[in-house]
């Protein structure tokens, strides 16, 4: 993004970067940047907090008025949603033997969140959640990739499937009371659900593959750093 800022500025367009990794801003030195002390993935900070988001965006855009070249300013408030919310409750579901059954148990939570937010972030695989859950159950059982979309490989389909399944679980978790931190939701997803444990197991299986692309999938593209074992 900081490199893009340089190139747009060369074309005569003013730019501001809202940056999350300060050392990158210091190295690439975009013309104007606001460093925000937030988690990767949320440049405007807390979700459902339009007032703080507005503060971030407005402070960033006001940098177009500065004459200092380059400008790097720190945003001085932390994300209040980093703090654990003790009111939050994870979806109350029993243990299941398949991801399909787990998804079925989560469905009322997911549907409630969809209605509440009038949107869902599930959809990149372009296949229903039940089909995706069955796909991942089958991959886990048979230990081989399965092609269910003719335009993409089984390996890519698997990656899209787990992204959609994670989105489904995250939205189910958001249906609970309170305002959970991302850590609360991810701890539940990766440590308390069948999907989480199977993803961690599949990661290890893939990392032992003779196929470099499958090893790469296991190493980088299934489990986030914090929940790798």
């Amino acid at each position, binding site marked *: 993004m900081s490199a*893009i800022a340089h190139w747009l500025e060369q074309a005569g367009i003013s730019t501001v970067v809202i940056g999350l990794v300060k050392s990158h801003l210091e190295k690439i030195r975009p013309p104007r940047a606001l460093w925000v002390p937030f988690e990767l993935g949320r440049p405007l900070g807390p979700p459902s907090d339009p007032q703080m988001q507005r503060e971030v965006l407005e402070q960033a855009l006001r940098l177009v008025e500065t004459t200092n070249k380059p400008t790097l300013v720190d945003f001085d408030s932390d994300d209040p949603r980093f703090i*654990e919310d003790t009111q939050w409750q994870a979806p109350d579901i029993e243990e299941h033997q398949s991801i399909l059954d787990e998804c079925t148990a989560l469905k009322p939570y997911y549907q409630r969140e969809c209605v509440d937010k009038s949107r869902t972030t599930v959809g*990149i695989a372009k296949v229903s959640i039940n089909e995706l859950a069955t796909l991942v159950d089958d991959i886990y059982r048979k230990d081989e990739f399965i092609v269910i979309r003719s335009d993409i490989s089984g390996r890519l389909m698997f990656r899209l499937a787990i992204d959609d399944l994670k989105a489904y679980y*995250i939205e189910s978790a958001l249906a609970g009371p309170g305002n959970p931190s991302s850590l609360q939701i991810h701890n539940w997803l990766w440590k308390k659900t069948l999907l989480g444990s199977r993803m961690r197991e599949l990661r290890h299986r893939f990392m032992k593959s003779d196929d470099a692309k499958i090893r790469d999938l296991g190493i980088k593209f299934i489990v986030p750093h914090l929940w790798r074992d």
Partner: protein
Amino acid sequence: MSLINLWILTAIVTVYWLTQKISAITENGMARLDQMAPAQREVLESLDCPTIADTAFVPPRPLNQCRVALVSSAGLMKRKDDNVSGSSSDYRVFENSWPERDILMNHISVNFDRTAFAEDINVVFPRAILKEMAEQEVIERTAAKHYAFMGATAPDKLQENVERLASELIDANINTVCLLPV
């Protein structure tokens, strides 16, 4: 209770509150580099950052004369469009009028938070906040179109398409861009 006692009590409560807050933040792992998972920190610190020789700097302009477009690196896609390749150097275009429910995230990385995007798209792509600023005349106007790249792509592979984007922005009479990495 005397004023001095009240003052001492207030000070104790304040110190306790601050201690709790700092403790909670530390335990939850703040997103600054020194508080990330060591492996993730190592990846970010070792990323090869480009050196840009020509550091152009457009002269300052008042915020209320800014016509603003958003450019995200979140690998966003429209629900019915093709998937975004993990190495794509192209950008996707998002009409300001498209509903939030039609915008999905198709980024290849698993190492950033997606719970916030799931809850509120504005943490990543703040079209609604920008629209509010335009309505209040804090900025001159918001762009009719906003844009997203795949942030995992090496910056040097993006330059040609950034130049094409710049032409598109100039044609649309946009003079300011807010860049939003994830």
